[in-house]
C-alpha cells in the first residue's frame, strides 16, 4: 500500500545522502576558502555579503566550514557505526551460538548501557579521555553496540532454529562456520538497514556532543560546535545558528529515508 511512496523515499534518501557525501569528499580537496582562515575585520557578515553563506565571529567563511564540517560529522559517524555495529554483531552472533549465560550476560549488558542517559555517560567518558574525535567515536559506538547486539541476537536465533541449520548442526559443522555460512548472510539485510538508520542518529549524537564541547578539537569545524558558538550570536547573526542545524537536519533525514527505502527494497514484508 505504500508502494507509491516507496521509490520517492529511496530516491529522496539517495539524493540527500549523495549530496552530503559528495560535499564532504569535495571539502577534502576544495572549499571556497580555507575553513580555518580568520579575517577578524570581516566578522559576522551576513550571507551573500561576504562569501555565499556569510562569516562567523572570527570572519571565517561559513560555507567552507559547513563543507568541512560535513566531512568531520560523516567520518566520525561512520567510524562510530562501524565500530558499534561490528562489536554489537559479534556479541549478538556469539550469544546466539552459546545461549545460556552468554546470552544473559549480553542482554544484561545491553540493559546497563540503556539505563544511563547516553549524554551523561558520554560526558563521563569525555572527562576521562579528554574531548576529541576518538572520544566521540567511542561514546557513540557504545550506544550502537546494544542496538546491534539485540538485533543480531534476535535474528540469529530465528535462523538457528530453521530446519536446514539444524541439519547442518547434525552434520557436525562447527558453530562459527554455520554463523558465517547461514546466519550472517540471512540477517545481513537487517544489519545494513539498521546501520543506515543508525548513521543518521550517529550524526545527530555527534552534533550533540560537539555542541557540549566534547567533539573534535578546533580548528576542525563541526556542526555541533558551530551551533554552540552561534548561541550567543542568536540576535546579531541568526544565520550562524540556522545553517548548521539545517545541515544536521538534512543529513539525518537523508539517512533515515535511505534506511527506510532500503528496508522496503530488501524486505517488502517488513514495512
Amino acid at each position, binding site marked *: 500500500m505504500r508502494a507509491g511512496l516507496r521509490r520517492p523515499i529511496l530516491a529522496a534518501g539517495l539524493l540527500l545522502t549523495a549530496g552530503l557525501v559528495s560535499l564532504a569528499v569535495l571539502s577534502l580537496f576544495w572549499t571556497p576558502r580555507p575553513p580555518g582562515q580568520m579575517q577578524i575585520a570581516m566578522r559576522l557578515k551576513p550571507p551573500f555579503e561576504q562569501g555565499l553563506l556569510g562569516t562567523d565571529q572570527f570572519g571565517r567563511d561559513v560555507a567552507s566550514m559547513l563543507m568541512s564540517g560535513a566531512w568531520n560529522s560523516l567520518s566520525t559517524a561512520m567510524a562510530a557505526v562501524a565500530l558499534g555495529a561490528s562489536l554489537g554483531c559479534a556479541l549478538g552472533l556469539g550469544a546466539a551460538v552459546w545461549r545460556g549465560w552468554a546470552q544473559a550476560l549480553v542482554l544484561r549488558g545491553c540493559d546497563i548501557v540503556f*539505563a544511563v542517559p547516553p549524554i551523561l555517560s558520554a560526558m563521563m567518558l569525555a572527562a576521562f579521555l579528554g574531548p576529541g574525535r576518538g572520544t566521540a567515536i567511542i561514546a557513540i559506538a557504545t550506544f550502537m553496540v546494544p542496538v546491534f547486539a539485540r538485533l543480531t541476537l534476535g535474528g540469529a536465533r530465528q535462523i538457528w532454529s530453521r530446519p536446514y541449520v539444524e541439519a547442518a548442526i547434525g552434520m557436525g559443522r562447527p558453530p562459527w562456520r554455520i554463523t558465517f555460512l547461514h546466519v550472517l548472510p540471512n540477517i545481513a539485510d537487517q544489519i545494513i538497514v539498521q546501520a543506515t538508520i543508525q548513521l543518521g542518529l550517529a550524526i545527530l549524537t555527534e552534533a550533540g556532543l560537539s555542541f557540549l564541547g566534547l567533539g573534535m578539537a578546533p580548528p576542525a569545524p563541526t556542526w555541533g560546535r558551530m551551533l554552540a558558538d552561534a548561541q550567543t550570536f*542568536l540576535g546579531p547573526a*541568526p544565520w550562524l*545558528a540556522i545553517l548548521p542545524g539545517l545541515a544536521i*537536519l538534512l543529513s539525518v533525514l537523508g539517512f533515515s529515508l535511505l534506511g527506510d527505502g532500503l528496508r522496503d527494497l530488501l524486505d517488502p514484508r517488513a514495512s
Partner: protein
Amino acid sequence: MITLLLRRLVGLVVSLLVVSVLIFTVMDLLPGDPASIMLGTSASPDTLAALQRELGLDRPLPERYLSWLGGVLTGDLGQSYTYGVPVAGLIAERLTLTLPLAAMAIAIALSVAIPLGVEAARRHGGVWDFMIGLFSYLGIALPAFWFGLLLILLFSVRLGWMPAGGFSGWQEGFAAGMQALLLPAIALALPQAAVLTRVTRTAVLDNIGEDFVRTARAKGLGEGAAIWRHAFPAALVPITTMLGLQFSFLVAGAVLVENVFNLPGLGRLALQSLSQRDVIVMQDVVLFFAALVITVNVLVDLVHLVVDPRLRREAG
C-alpha cells in the same frame, strides 16, 4: 507473568548495582577531586589534605562506596561535597522542574501524535498521509537542542513573547512557571511526537482490517467512530511501548534542552556535579535516572496487561 516481572526486577536491581560501581570507579579515576576544585589555585598541600580528611576523601574507594551504598539502602542518599547539603533535597528541588517539563513534553507529543497518526491511517495513501509522513521524518531528524535555539530566536529574540530561558520556580505563580517551560517542552516534544505519530499510524492501520472493526462498521458505526472506538484502543499497546522506550531519549534530550534554555533541572545538576567531581550527587542522579527509566518500562508492561485482553489471557 508475575514471576516474570519479579525476575526482571531482580535483574534490573543487579544492573543498577553494576552501574553504580562503574560510576563510582570512573568518577574516582577522573582527573581532579572535589577538594582541590573547592580550594582553587592558591591552597597549600596541607590545606588540601585537611579538606580531604574533612570530606572523608582520604578513605579508600571501596569503603566510600560501601558507606554510600549502605546509606542508599537505608534511604539516605548522602551529602553533596560541594553544596554541603543532603542530595535528596537537591534532587527533590530539581524535580519540581524536570517532572513537569517531561510531563508537558509527553502531553504535547501525544496530543500531536495521536490525531495525526489516526488521521494518516484513515486516509492512508492520500495526500494527508504523505504530509504527515513527511512531518514525522522531519521531526525524527530534528535535533531538539537546535529546535530549541530556533524557538528562542523566533519567540524570544524576534517577537519577545517568551522568556529566553531560566526558571524562577513556581513561587512566581503557576502561569509564569508554565510559560517558562512551554518552549523547552515543545522542543523536547517534537521529535517524540514524530516517532509516536509513525507508531500510531502503523498500529491503527494494522487493526483497521481486523474483524472487530469490520463488525463495528457492519453495526452501523461511522468509519471515524469505528476507528476511534475499536482500532485505536488496540493501538494503545504499541504506543505505550514506544513511549516507554522513548522515555530514556526524552531524559537524555532534556539534558541538552535544559542547557539551551538554562533550566536548573536534573540534567544540569548531573553536568554540574560531574564538573565539580561531586561523586555522591552524580551517583544519585544517574541512579535516579536509571531507576526512572526502569520503572517506566515496568509500568508499560503493566499497562499492556490492562489494555490488551490477549496478553491478559496469556498471563492468566
